[in-house]
């Protein structure tokens, strides 16, 4: 039963993902990145900012802007809840997450250096804010 349910979920997950995003449903906790988001990370059209949010690296298209806005609204919701739980400000929590998100980028992905410029992650550690844990 569970197996069948999982298979069915997997089969409908991809086409439904866009609708779920638009309708504002909370995605399952262990959900993976949407293929469009994964592709945008890999080809460097989006990157991780210092402030804990996703940024557009080059020319913004309406579709790209929508995707980035959607992810950032969700991130902000999570940051707000977690900051409250940890007696921190949203900015403090978001910056901490930004430190971690930049550290977790893989070679080829873009991230924002402390000077604000976009860098491409290599196998070397990324340039991060001195206050990053």
């Amino acid at each position: 039963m569970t197996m069948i349910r999982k298979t069915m979920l997997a089969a409908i997950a991809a086409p439904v993902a866009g609708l779920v995003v638009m309708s504002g449903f909370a995605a399952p906790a262990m959900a993976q990145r949407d293929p469009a988001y994964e592709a945008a990370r890999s080809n460097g059209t989006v990157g991780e900012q210092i402030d804990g949010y996703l940024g557009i690296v080059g020319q913004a298209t309406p579709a790209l802007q929508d995707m980035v806005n959607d992810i950032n609204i969700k991130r902000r919701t999570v940051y707000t809840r977690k900051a409250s739980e940890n007696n921190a400000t949203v900015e403090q929590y978001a910056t901490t997450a930004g430190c971690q998100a930049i550290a977790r980028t893989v070679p080829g992905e873009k991230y924002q250096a402390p000077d604000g410029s976009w860098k491409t992650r290599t196998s070397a550690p990324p340039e991060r804010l001195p206050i990053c844990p």
Partner: protein
Amino acid sequence: MDRRIIHAGLMVSCLLGLGGCINVAAPEEPIVIELNVNIRAEVLYRLAEDASNTIDENADIF
């Protein structure tokens, strides 16, 4: 004669020392800014583990 010179020297160094103290007390602002940076870093360290878990639990948006 030598003692007088030594005394004069001590007085001068005391005055210089006093002047030094006043000068050290003057730039209060940079010290405050540095404190804020330390406090911020401390907060980020405190939040690090929780933020790491948050990223794992929300893998679709990170």
